[in-house]
């Protein structure tokens, strides 16, 4: 049950190198070139916690279908040098069918890689680079690998221009020379050329950029935040662009300030968002409770990393589900969503902004490092990928007229009361984190507490979220159930199981709270085997679904912590091995 590994029609490769070797730059150019040649692609990167100049690996998979996960293994390992590669070895699964490319003058290949049985080819990268003015080994290797993969030279050159153009001719010109030199020297006949489709209108975007774009598409015009890995790119993308849109980003002194700043801006009527990662979310939960109680819409994009505490900041995990669901004190109903892929970061964040605004509440969107810091070639998003038809009314209900009887927290049939914005005569009220009566005056009376609790819960549970709550693919008696970024490997596992004769359905949850229990139970139906897949140690989603009585008793859990990404093959094994019914 190994993954298809022919290079024709797609391939998986890793480029590794120590600080300054340009592994990631080569990967970025290759991704851009693959997109220009008409394929889809996914570029992940792995780095240690060093600030500058440490080792890094770029991992690229491409092919004629949208790429949603990195797969099981690598066809090609391009080693620009071998310093510290051992740190990545367990992230770079190779086998006998893999090919390691190395420079003829480089150090011997480390034993830890050779143990895989992969074949090795030594190539004259350094010699070719030395023959060029300001020659660069990574660019020579890139040209050669591009030729071996069957990429057109003009796609590589165009990819290099798009990636390096900002650095000026002093970088671009010698890079292009080296790419051409490597390309010309490649023994192209050694590898079957890929059949690339003609170029089409696609995007090259990272998950963190996609989250930022989803925010501004949803109407966000104010962001306050404190930098944290791996969420900072969301903020770096937004800062200059919000200004172009007439909004602004404020770098706060800490996460406590961030969340309260966006509560203030949202109180003023501007859709607002912050982005953070686990430790930052911990600091924000007090403020999130204030937003719930005061019915102030805010969105938090939490780009999860390995936890607890500062954990593994540069690598991925899905272990913040519990804090997102349960972190707030008191009965504090709020929305929890999870993006199912890089492209889905756009739609999920946009949807979250609309829902938070419409329901005047908190939405936490769970992304993670593997989504946030990977880039992909994607089809551009539609006007709205899901929740179609809902968009028209997904905005804040704002009180329009001066009304001397305006009562901010008056219970309404759907729980959503019109919100007066500062500037509206006659709408004056004090937003309140203390329990309050309908007019906003603090109250410790049981009847006010009961009424306001009910209002805040009912407006979320009574809303029709439409079809966006999950993505469901395939048919079959076997069911893989997952959430967030695990969707990519789960979808591929289900597809490969179906192809091998095991009818398998996949359900990926996008809206985790409020859980769409009835819809989920209906989607689960009478599935014979059910496996809940997630990337954390304690099966947080599995436990949550059971607590909501949303899972049959025979459902099983496959939960594994990060930082190693979930692979389709391990999910297939987990479904079938213990199931004992099928031989794959």
């Amino acid at each position, binding site marked *: 049950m190994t993954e298809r590994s022919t290079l024709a029609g797609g391939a998986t490769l890793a480029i590794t190198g120590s600080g300054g070797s340009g592994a990631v730059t080569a990967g970025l150019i290759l991704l851009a070139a693959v997109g220009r040649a008409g394929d889809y692609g996914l570029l992940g990167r792995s780095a240690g916690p060093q600030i500058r100049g440490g080792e890094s690996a770029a991992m690229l998979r491409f092919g004629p279908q949208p790429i949603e996960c990195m797969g099981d293994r690598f066809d090609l390992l391009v080693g620009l040098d071998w310093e510290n590669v051992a740190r990545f070895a367990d992230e770079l699964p190779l086998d006998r069918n893999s090919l390691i490319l190395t420079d003829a003058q480089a150090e011997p290949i480390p034993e830890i890689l050779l143990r895989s049985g992969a074949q090795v080819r030594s190539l004259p990268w350094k010699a070719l680079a030395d023959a060029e003015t300001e020659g660069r080994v990574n660019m020579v290797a890139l040209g050669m690998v591009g030729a071996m993969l069957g990429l057109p030279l003009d796609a590589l050159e165009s990819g290099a221009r798009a990636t390096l153009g900002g650095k000026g001719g002093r970088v671009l010109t010698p890079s292009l020379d080296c790419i051409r030199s490597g390309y010309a020297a490649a023994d192209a006949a050694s590898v079957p050329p890929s059949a690339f489709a003609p170029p089409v209108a696609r*995007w090259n975007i990272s998950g963190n950029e996609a989250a930022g774009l989803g925010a501004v598409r949803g109407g966000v015009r104010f962001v306050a935040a404190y930098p944290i890995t791996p969420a900072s790119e969301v903020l770096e993308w937004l800062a200059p*662009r919000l200004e172009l849109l007439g909004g602004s980003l404020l770098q706060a002194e800490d996460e406590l300030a961030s969340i309260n700043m966006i509560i203030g801006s949202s109180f003023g009527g501007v859709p607002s968002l912050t982005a953070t990662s686990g430790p930052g979310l911990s600091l924000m939960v007090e403020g999130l409770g204030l937003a719930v109680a005061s019915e102030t819409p805010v969105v938090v994009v939490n780009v999860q990393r390995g936890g607890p505490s500062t954990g593994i900041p540069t690598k991925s995990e899905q272990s913040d589900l519990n804090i997102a669901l349960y972190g707030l004190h008191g009965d504090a109903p709020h929305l929890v969503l999870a993006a199912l892929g890089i492209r889905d970061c756009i739609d999920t964040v946009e949807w979250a902004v609309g829902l938070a605004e419409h329901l005047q509440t908190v939405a936490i969107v769970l992304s993670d490092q593997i989504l946030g810091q990977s880039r992909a070639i994607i089809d551009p998003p539609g006007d709205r990928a899901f929740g179609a038809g809902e968009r028209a009314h997904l905005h804040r209900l704002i009180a329009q007229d001066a009304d001397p009887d305006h009562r901010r927290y008056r219970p309404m049939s759907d729980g959503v009361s019109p919100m007066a914005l500062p500037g509206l005569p006659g709408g004056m009220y004090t937003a309140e984190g203390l329990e309050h009566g309908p007019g906003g*005056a603090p109250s410790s009376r049981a009847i006010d507490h009961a009424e306001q609790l009910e209002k805040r819960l009912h407006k979320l549970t009574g809303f029709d979220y439409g079809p966006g709550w999950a993505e469901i693919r395939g048919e079959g008696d076997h069911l893989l159930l997952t959430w967030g970024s695990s969707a990519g490997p789960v979808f591929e596992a289900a597809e490969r199981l179906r192809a091998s004769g095991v009818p398998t359905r996949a359900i990926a949850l996008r809206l985790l709270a409020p859980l769409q229990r009835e819809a989920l139970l209906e989607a689960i139906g009478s599935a014979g085997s059910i496996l809940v897949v997630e990337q954390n140690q304690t099966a947080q989603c599995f436990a949550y679904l059971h607590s909501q009585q949303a899972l049959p008793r025979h459902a099983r859990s496959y939960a594994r912590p990060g930082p190693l990404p979930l692979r389709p093959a391990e999910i297939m094994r987990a479904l079938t091995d213990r199931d004992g019914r099928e031989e794959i």
Partner: protein
Amino acid sequence: MDAANIAPTLRAKDYKSDVAPVWCPGCGHFAVLSAVTKALAHLRLAKERVAMISGIGCSSRLPAYVDAYGFHGIHGRALPIASGLKAARPDLTVIVAGGDGDGFSIGGNHFLHACRRNMDLTYIVMDNEVYGMTKGQASPTTQPDWAKSKLTPHGTGMRPFLPTAIALAAGASFIARGFAGDPTGLTKLLVEAIEHPGFAFLQVLSPCQTFRPEQKEWKHLVHPSDMAPTDDPVEAARFIQADDGMALGLLYVRRLPVWQPQNQPTATPADLEREFAL
């Protein structure tokens, strides 16, 4: 100030809401509330263009008592809420009210950075050197030998926080001290603070009758500042360090760049999407 913010003549009582204060009889905060409404009336500010923001504590109840927009938030976070509001809505007059615990202990870091950021906010700290709402614990401004709290029966043993000195060091552009027992002087300082472009910090000595009855003596201890307001931070620092903490008036004022966002859109999200196209 924005012309749209000017109201037809309103009297101070028109700015009072119909919510009854929870404060103890004789609390200094009543005088602060009165000074706020008088200052708003003096400036003829339209009620709907004023936002009163607070955290938690006795003094933080103030927004509910003013007929304007308000946000009663959580402990220590009034300044971030106000900063976010002002960044999003620079057209509003944003006034922040709180106490010494809220502002200098749990919210201390926000205080430092609000001084640095110099947004156009007015920050009134009603300082009574005690936590009143939780029934009488030491605050950052409490003297080290005050041993009446069950939490610190031997006193705090720590030197008190010096609000004006710290505001100056952190870069505040307007620093003043008022007294609840001097309503006329307090109203005048509030008017100046609201009119000041930038972060205006106003420490108000506001006695707590319940937990610090000895503060009744403050009316004999306060005195007008004997220094004219300066824009020289070195001179101001010298004065503030030598001050007995009871000098009233405007101590320091300086025109510094005010943080405010530019708000003219020149693009749409669809324009931004082009950068991703291959």
